[in-house]
Structure formats: C-alpha cells, structure tokens
C-alpha cells in the first residue's frame, strides 16, 4: 500500500490564500450599507404586515440558530450566554450550529483580522438565505482596542452587511441578550411574501 505524494505543496496553497486576502483587502474600502430596507417600506407605503408575514416572522424570530464563529474573547461571553446561567435557549437560540448550512445568524464575536476576513466572508456566503449578522464587541464594530493595528479589519461592516451592533469589550451577556432582542424586533418587521 504505497501512498502517492501530497496533492498540493503548502507553498502553492499559501500563495492562493494570500492572493485572496490581498484582493479582499483592496476591495473592501467603504462599509456595506446596513440592511434596513424594511424601514423604508414602512415610510413610503406604510405597508401593513400581512398576517402570513406575521406568522412567518414569528416562526423565524424564535428559532434563530447562530453559527458558532467565535473569534476571540467575546466568544466566551457568547458561550457564557449559551450556558445555563444566562440561558438563550429561552429564545430558541441555544443550538450553536458548527456548519453555516444550518445557521441563520452569523454572530461575529471577536477581532476580525485580514487573514480571517476571506474565511468569514465565505462562511457568510455559505449560509442559507434568511440570514442576519450581529457584530458583537467593539472589535467587530470598529476594530476596537486594535484599531490602528496593521492586520485588523476596522469593523466587520467592511466585509459583511451588519444588522445589529453590540458595543462592549466584551459586552456583558445581558447586553448581548438585549442586542438579540433588538434583532428579534427587526425580524418581526420584515415582509416576506412579495406583493404581486
């Protein structure tokens, strides 16, 4: 049973990944606009949330499953929130899915560096459609204490559209829970069915 040599040399792979990082770094200059399209609709045509929308929003709101993407110290406040004392299974969120395929919420908890940015963008892209992004902690909002470092992304909204920002370093579990309740209110106002 002889083994064939490794398919790729690691230098090739490093070069491919580095090119990806540089490309993303040049591409992300100004932040994504925050997805607040639901509010414009209210102002323009004061559309009434139909009861079917209401029902669908209610179902989505109370089964938001975060993808377990803890980057740094905030991750341990996030796990603390999932633990038994500040329990978020009351909101139906205690299932931290490891793969983005089964997740609805990308809770960016910690400092995002340029080397990690393409991976985070790929995880966001690989999540099924009704998905939301919560930027937890001042590192995810604006780079935080590491803002003027050479390798830190100054704010996750340079890479992803962010729905809720939760300040703090790390934010207390209660603050995180307040942020998630804000997210629930946001979900409850979304119109799902297209107006024909």
């Amino acid at each position, binding site marked *: 049973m002889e083994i064939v040599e490794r398919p790729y040399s690691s230098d090739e792979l490093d070069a491919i990944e580095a090119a990806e990082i540089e490309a993303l770094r040049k591409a992300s200059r100004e932040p994504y606009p925050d997805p607040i399209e639901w509010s414009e609709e209210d102002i323009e045509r004061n559309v009434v949330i139909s009861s079917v929308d209401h029902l669908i929003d209610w179902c989505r709101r109370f089964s938001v499953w975060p993808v377990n993407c803890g*980057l740094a*110290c905030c991750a*341990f406040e996030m796990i603390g929130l999932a633990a038994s004392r500040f329990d978020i299974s009351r909101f139906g969120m205690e299932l931290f899915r490891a793969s983005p395929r089964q997740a609805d919420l990308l809770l960016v908890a910690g400092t995002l560096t340029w080397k990690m940015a393409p991976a985070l963008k790929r*995880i966001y892209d690989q999540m099924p459609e009704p998905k939301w992004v919560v930027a937890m902690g001042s590192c995810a909002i604006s780079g935080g204490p*590491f803002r003027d*470092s050479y*390798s830190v992304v100054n704010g996750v909204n340079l890479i992803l559209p962010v729905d809720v920002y939760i300040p703090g370093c790390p934010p207390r579990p209660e603050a995180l829970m307040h942020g998630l309740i804000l997210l629930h209110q946001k979900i409850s106002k979304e119109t799902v069915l297209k107006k024909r």
Partner: protein
Amino acid sequence: MFKTEPIMINFGPQHPSTHGVFRMRITFDGERIVDLEPIFGYLHRGIEKLGESKTYAQIIPYTDRLDYLASMTNNHAYVLAVEKLAGIEVPERAEYLRVIMAELMRIASHLMTVGFMLNEMGAFFTPLLYMWREREKILDLFEMVCGQRLTYNYMRIGGVSHDIPEEFMPALRRFIDEMPGFIDEYDQLLAENEILLARTKGVGILPAEKAINCSVSGPVLRASGVKWDLRKADPYSVYDRFDFEIPTCQNGDVYDRYRMRILEMRQSVRIIEQAMAQLPGGEFRAKVPATLRPPKGEAYGHVEGPKGELGFYLVSDGSPNPYRFHIRAPALLNLTVLRDLCVGRLLADALVILGSIDICMGEVDR
C-alpha cells in the same frame, strides 16, 4: 493491496473544536493522519507592535486580551516584569491579593480546559455546563473585586487597582469550602469512565526529554514527568510562603494531562486557603507615577500560568513607552509537539490531543 491516495482537509479557522481560530492542514490516508501542518495568524492583532506606542500602564488592558481565559495571570506576569524592570516594591497585601486572584484564575482556566477536552471526546456540552457553573462563581468573585467578567484590568504596576469589598471574603470562603467537593465530583464521574479511558489512555504520549526539547511548559510538561513549576523552581511574588506540592504524572498521555488539571485545581484551592489566612492589612498599591519612566535596560518576568510559563520581555529606553514588548506565549510553544503527537494516529485522536494541549488563540497569535 490497493493503491490509496491521500486527501488534504482543512481543520480550518472556523471549527468547533480548535479552541478559537486555529487551523490545521491535515493530509489523511483514510482515517490515519499522514501529515499535519498547523497554521497560525488568524487572530494576530499585532499586540507587540501596539504595545510599543502605549505607556506601561496603558498596556495592562492589552494583556487581558492575550489569553482571555486567564486574564488575571497575564496581568500578573506583565506587572511583575515591569516591577522587575523599574525596581518597584509591592506592599504585602497586594502580593497576597494577586496570588488569590491568580490561583482563582488557574482554577477557572483548568475548568475550561477539562470541559472543552470532554467536548472533543463526545460528551457534548454536558460536563462543560457543569464546569461553567463553577466558573460563573469565580467570575462573580472577580466582578465583586474589579467589576468585569472577562477582561479584568485588575492589577496595576505596584499593586492592585481596588481593595476587596467586605463581602468578598465570605463569598470566597463559601467558594473554597464547596470547590473540593465539586472537583471530587468531576473526578469521580470522569476518572473511571470507560469512554474517557478508551479515548485517552496511551493516546498522544509525550516523552519527557522531547517535551523539554520542544520548550513545552505547564501541565503538559509536568504530565510527562518533569517536575518543573515556576512557583517552586523560581518562586516569584509570595509563593515561597505557601506549602503546596507540584503534582506530576508519569507517562505523559492525554489521560495524564487531564489528571494534571484536576490535581492542580486541588493545589490551587490549598494555596488560596493559606493566602486567605495570611492576608495582611495595609495599603494595596505603592505610589507609582502615572507615566512611569523605568531606567534604560531590559527585564524578563515570568509566571506559571495555567497554560505554562508566560513571560514578558521588556526593553526600556527611559521613555514612558517600552522600546520592545515581547510575550513568551506558552500555548504557541506547547503546539510544537502537536504534529509529532498526531502523525500516525487517527483523526479522532488528533482533536483530543489538541484539546489536552489546551491552546488559547489570543495568546498564540498575539
């Protein structure tokens, strides 16, 4: 037999059991690991470069975010290094408070290590939630003292930031009385569990001289039978006034590394008990100028952290900012042995071995 081809899989930055954003590029032949290449840098925030533009007191919050599971110990190591550099005397009461906080942090960090190690063995979140219950008690004690749950910024150059409130001692007393019972409960539930024995006995054996050669430190080194603990070998602060032993195990496999954490938690409880008994009165912080200007020179202060020897190498040129600020990260050096322990073993063992080495990416990538 038939020719089989290797496949290269990323245990990438976003993985439930890599303790943060650590990545391993593993080449498999079926289930057996043929090659493992650790890749770092996904949480490299350049703390050493940022430290050079901050004053000595402003760097303390950065040290909290290094090993965010043991922030008190990072503070302690950094503050000792600065005091050695600037030659500052620390009052007795501050030394004892620092030892109490450092040992409480060691218990909390070991609880997390054992909890997450069992996550990797398949006991998904059950033991971790029990151990998190104890950690929440310790976090309450820290919150009483310095108001924060994770990044304490509690220790200052020359002492500690706040004195302990009067309800701290009774709460600590209650915690210290309960804790040995909980540690026995964990040990009783886990030590003779067949699954744990089957997954950890004889897995990832690290011989003693290889551990020394690979600059491994902390419980991983002592699990291989090397009796080397800075609290006894090079006693800093007031550790020479307490009597406690340094537990070591013999054959250095994953089971011994698990045992090491349990035994060390018991020793930490003993230290805290003696420190509480001998806690003197007096002021808790020496008079230190706000913008400290240490004399030209360098100093290397190290501390026995939960993950190993955490050292700070500071070079000063007389200005209020350090000229060079280097952190000796025990978790990064403990990972030197990961490749040698995992190659040739099965995939499932690799994650358990990584869990037993217990890394924290904030300190590895800095």
